[in-house]
């Protein structure tokens, strides 16, 4: 028997460490010899902390485990009467887990990421051994070609093509780089994979190294992921101790090792040429391609860069055959994809499904629909380079081409779901604020153009929009797209263009009628006190920074709109729901 606690960053934030300690201490006290193991994130973040009891072939799962629940689980383990069943996972949630097709996430939440034996027990490092012992590098690349695997980092470029190009490039040493910069705010699959199954990424990189002919690998991890760095370091150490990394692997002439480089906080460093500049100790500024990294990459040598999820798929493909991977998905987008469901979604977390499902199937299926029974308005995909897809297009199939046709992109797989209370103009402003801050400054169109767009959007959100603003935004968008060197600038206008395409009326409402129907843009709101509901408790009047609220104790109060600074404090503090916001 074994007990496991999901301890990814998300589980820990939900209190998993305390539960783990409590279970361990409880078992020790009762003298029960049962390990309490750590696993990564199973993806059901809305149910964290999650505890499993594995007994033979049977696994019992308990969710939202707090201290009280942990005590019931302990009673159960001691064979005493208990109430643990109350915390058992519900059948519908089990179904959601089983309806997925987990390839990249195959071990996440299942194995202990700090124990290499558990990875090996699930056929870990078998694929690289087969490659080294019985496949030529060309055959490995051929298998990846058959699988149809394309890059999961955003652009969706065929993986085999990049490997082949790096293999054919003259010169050396060659480098294998893993892009774990995961800059798209709202996506966290790369973190979950490294935290939950670091050896899968290592093995994927080893296979790439064997195919390309490289002896050195580097993982570029963003600084905000301290736990991922710790788990990866630990995994690398274990792999080295087993002789799985080092000079001569499986008794062959092939040697490979990996080191970690922590990023220092710059979104643009996720772009491959900027990432290379950063690895070289420079400011992370993208450069013109070609030459591509496969020709001239790190230290001017041929380099192959792939995303974390891309590498994590590789060992599975080599073990099960490229055709098995290609059997899933659509004609042009093969295999499965991990999505991060966040925002106003009921069941937020990570899921992995075959390409080709529709947005609606995911949002109402795996996502459990919209939080608090509100109306589904849009989903943002592709982060700052992507766009907002409206509910009306929710039957769009998720594959690279169909998404691009909506004006959004697949990106890294972040799906931020929005409901009726999300203002689309504010979302556009939010993304432009992001790209404007993250522009490296090399191209004037990107550096200055995004700022001009942001200024207009800020004005519109502040109720100072003017006729002609929409057209000006469109003009600037075209110029930024055409005048920027890297994808950061070229795609920066996308959030504005897609919201203009699908939610133009919201822009017009803001500009012409000074109205924000989602009630997000505070300067456009008006506040009034409902005399019927107001008890005259004076709380709002005391909190009002503009002293705009007057009235006598125990009598209805009033707001003087000429003094109101529209901070919204009165509505926040009112305990009687008496402040009306319009």
């Amino acid at each position, binding site marked *: 028997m074994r007990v496991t606690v999901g301890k990814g*960053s*998300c589980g*820990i*934030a*939900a209190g998993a460490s305390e539960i783990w300690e409590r279970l361990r201490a409880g078992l020790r006290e009762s003298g029960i010899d049962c390990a309490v193991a750590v696993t990564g994130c199973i993806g059901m*973040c*809305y149910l*964290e902390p999650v505890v499993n009891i594995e007994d033979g072939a049977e696994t019992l799962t308990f969710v939202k485990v707090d201290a009280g629940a942990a005590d019931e689980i302990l009673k159960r383990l001691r064979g005493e009467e208990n109430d643990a069943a109350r915390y058992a996972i519900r059948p519908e949630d089990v179904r959601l887990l089983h309806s997925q097709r987990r390839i990249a996430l195959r071990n996440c939440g299942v194995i202990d990421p700090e124990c290499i034996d558990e990875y090996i027990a699930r056929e870990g490092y078998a694929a690289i051994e087969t490659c080294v012992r019985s496949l030529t590098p060309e055959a490995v690349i051929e298998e990846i070609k058959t699988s149809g695997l394309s890059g999961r980092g955003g652009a969706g470029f065929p993986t085999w093509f990049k490997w082949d190009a790096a293999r054919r490039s003259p010169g050396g040493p060659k480098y294998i780089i893993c892009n774990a910069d*995961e*800059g*798209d*705010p*709202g*996506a*966290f699959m790369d*973190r979950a994979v490294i935290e939950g199954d670091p050896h899968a990424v290592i093995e994927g990189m080893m296979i790439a190294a064997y195919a390309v002919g490289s002896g050195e690998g580097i993982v570029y991890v963003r*600084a*905000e*992921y*301290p*736990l991922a760095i710790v788990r990866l370091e630990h995994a690398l150490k274990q792999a080295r101790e087993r002789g799985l990394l080092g000079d001569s692997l499986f008794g062959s002439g092939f040697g490979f090792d990996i080191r970690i*480089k*922590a*990023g*220092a*906080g*710059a*979104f643009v460093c996720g772009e491959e040429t900027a990432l290379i500049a*950063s*690895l*070289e*100790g*420079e*400011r*992370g500024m993208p450069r013109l391609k070609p030459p591509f990294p496969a020709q001239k990459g790190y*230290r001017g040598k041929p380099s192959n860069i792939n995303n974390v999820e891309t590498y994590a798929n590789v060992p599975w493909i080599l073990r099960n055959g490229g055709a098995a991977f290609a059997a899933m998905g659509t004609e042009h987008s093969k295999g499965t994809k991990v999505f*991060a*469901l*966040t*925002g*106003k979604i009921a069941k*937020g*977390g*990570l899921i992995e499904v075959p390409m080709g499902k529709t947005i609606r199937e995911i949002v109402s299926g795996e996502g459990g629909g919209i939080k608090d029974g509100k109306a589904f308005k849009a989903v*943002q995909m592709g*982060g700052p380079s992507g766009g907002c897809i409206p509910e009306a297009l929710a039957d769009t199939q998720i594959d690279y081409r169909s998404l691009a046709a909506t004006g959004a992109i697949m990106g890294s797989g*972040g799906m*931020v779901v*929005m409901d009726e209370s*999300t203002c689309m103009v504010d*979302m556009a402003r*939010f*993304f432009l604020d*992001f790209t404007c801050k*993250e522009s*490296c400054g090399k191209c004037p169109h990107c550096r200055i153009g995004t700022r001009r767009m942001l200024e207009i959007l800020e004005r519109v959100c502040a109720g100072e929009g003017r006729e002609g603003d929409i057209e000006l935004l469109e003009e600037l968008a075209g110029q930024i797209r055409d005048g920027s060197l890297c994808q950061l600038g070229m795609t920066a206008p996308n959030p504005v263009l897609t919201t203009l395409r699908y939610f133009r009326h919201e822009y017009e409402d803001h500009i012409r009628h000074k109205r924000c129907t989602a009630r997000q843009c505070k300067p456009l709101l008006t506040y009034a006190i409902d005399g019927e509901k107001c008890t005259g408790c004076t709380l709002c009047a005391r909190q009002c920074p503009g002293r705009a609220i007057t009235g006598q104790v125990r009598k209805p109060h009033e707001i003087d709109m000429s003094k109101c600074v529209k901070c919204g404090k009165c509505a*926040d503090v009112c305990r009687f729901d008496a402040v009306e916001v319009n």
Partner: protein
Amino acid sequence: MGCGCAERRELSGPALDTALLEPYLAEYKDSEAKGGLIAILQKAQDIYGYLPEELLTYIARRVGVKPAKVMGVVTFYTQFRLKPAGKHLVLLCQGTACHVNGSAEIEGAVRDALGAEEGEITGNGLFTYTNVACLGCCSLSPVMMIGDKTYGGLTKDKAAAILKDIEREETSG
């Protein structure tokens, strides 16, 4: 002539113990030194809490690049600080998921609770808060991180209470 930025300024003011940095400078000797610049700066910030200008000049000299170059790198990456920070660094997520779930309001609550603006040290020297783009715990949004600990599902009250708890622990202990 030139811009003068290659001028060798010695460490002034309250002298920093540069010996602490020695192992890392040694690790990135020769051809590796330039590529290791970011790693050296990260170590330096770990040790000293921030990167004073004199230290940057010192590192530039040791690594063999111009101080302007070091400054260029430091100002490019958001992780690096030229000014000291409070004992606890509060990273407040303003990523997409957190934004949709009201992170702007949380910032207001944090600002009020600390009585300091972004990047400033609170009067008691305990806290500095900064906005970041995503902490990778988006499904628990809104989220903040203090030290290595992540706090999810924040409300204005919860955020303020977490800060007060830390403050109480610090002042009573």
